[in-house]
């Protein structure tokens, strides 16, 4: 059952990710990205990361992508204009892709320390309480630093959006 559901959602995620790149229309690409995020949320939920799954849905699929779609609709962008491919891209693209995949495969199999395979139901520290405890004890400094980072981003956005007063 677990493996069937995993393959289903993983398949959805991969198909949506491919669709995101292939589609010419920005709205279609944005919707595919939402599909990827929703499928990832389902996989997190399966692996026991309940809080991460909900956060993924609320923050990425629900909030950030709404802004993307909102902007695309506001600009009312049509289909992408197609530029001619560069010569070296059309010749070297496919071999480079294989090199890239091989590199990633090498890194996963050789460079990472040998660890046990992930099991469904093997991870139980994904509850909101467990993550909250970790966040405010072991990872307090990164957490606070991130909040400062977000504050800087907000100030930056306000400075950029401010109307010039003569």
């Amino acid at each position, binding site marked *: 059952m677990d493996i069937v559901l995993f393959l289903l959602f993983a398949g959805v995620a991969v198909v949506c990710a491919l669709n995101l790149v292939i589609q010419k229309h920005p*709205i279609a690409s944005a919707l595919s990205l*939402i599909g990827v995020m929703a499928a990832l949320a389902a996989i997190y939920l399966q692996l026991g990361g309940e809080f991460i799954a*909900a956060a993924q*849905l609320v923050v990425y699929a629900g*909030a950030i992508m*709404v*802004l993307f779609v*909102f902007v695309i*609709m506001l600009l009312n962008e049509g289909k992408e204009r197609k530029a001619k491919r560069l010569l070296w891209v059309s010749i070297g693209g496919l071999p480079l892709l294989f090199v890239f995949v091989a590199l990633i495969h090498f890194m996963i199999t050789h460079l990472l320390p040998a660890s046990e395979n992930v099991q469904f139901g093997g991870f139980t520290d994904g509850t909101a309480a467990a993550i909250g405890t970790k966040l405010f004890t072991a990872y307090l400094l990164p957490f606070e630093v991130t909040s400062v980072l977000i504050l800087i981003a907000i100030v930056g956005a306000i400075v950029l959006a401010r109307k010039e007063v003569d």
Partner: protein
Amino acid sequence: MPYIVLSVIKLLIVVLILMHVLAYLQWVERKVIAHVQLRVGPRRVGPHGLLQPLADVIKLVTKEGMLPSHVNTPFYFLAPFIAVLFALIPMCLIPYGGDITVFGIHTTMQVTDVSVGVLLVFGLSGMGVYGVALAGWASNNKYSLMGGLRSSAQMISYELPMAMAIAAPLLILNTLSFRHMVDGQAGFYFGFIPKWTIFQGPIPQIFSFILFMIAAFAETNRVPFDLPEAENELVAGFHTEYSSMTFAAFFMAEYANMITVSCIATLLFLGGWHPLWPAAYGSSFLAPVIFAASGLVCFSHGLRPARPLDRITLPVFGVLFLGLAALFLIPAGQQILIPLFWFGAKTGFILFVFIWVRATLPRFRYDQLMGFAWTFMFPVALINLFVTALGVALS
């Protein structure tokens, strides 16, 4: 019994009841608004218009669906599907009652219990905005686009105060699972004041409840915040170009969202399925008394029929009501029906408030709507959260 069979059975029951509630909610809305405005409302189809929802459904299903030539077809059809999907999924996560034992099988009155239930419901219903926004954009019509854009902006803005209004009672209840949330509201102060979050110490969450309800009106696009479909400005807003079943889909999504929000308000603030006063003072007998009285009223009217058919129909309904009252008194029925009655009564009251407000208040102006969210709701929700946090920390 295997988990999957049990889940499918529960899902079927929930869907069956939900679809009827959705259809009849619209009848209730038309009736209530009619009586507020001193009209009688629908009463042609069936007694008191009770078969009107059925007639409406038949009309919407059999009507020809128009496909305007200028729309972006795939997205045009995807939009109502998304709207309905994300309006109905949250229903699986909502508990309608406590633990029950039916035919020797112990189970809960909930399709599935997730430990982060409230977050998941919030996330899923947040996805509903795509349906509205996409419908507005794919219709390729300036009124629809304006409606879709207004709706996205409004939903994003009001999600913030809504999340903060939810966070305050969660601090007191100290859980994200709906089931534990309701368990945390069991019991009574001094034996008669219920420990619902709106009454519970250290800080009664009455302000959170009001903020949540205001944000809920905006999230469900209801009057006074129904700017995405403001008739006198935008024709019908985002669903201008939709007809027959695709139109019905948006209609259904709006009512399903209303029910979800009312259920969440009941679970978070009004103690879920816990009664208003203790069972020791006879709160379990309120439901049977109401149903028995309804049955007797039916019988007394059946004896003096206004129309010839009433001589048959009213006694039949009388027997049905009395049978229901009897079900409330036997232990097997009691464990299911009494929690369900209290949950339904509270949710129904909130739904009534939704309709009541629609009959009472005029619509906001768009700049007032956004200003209200960011300059009033947001700071007040923030202060409310801080005060609650302080109260919880000190107690």
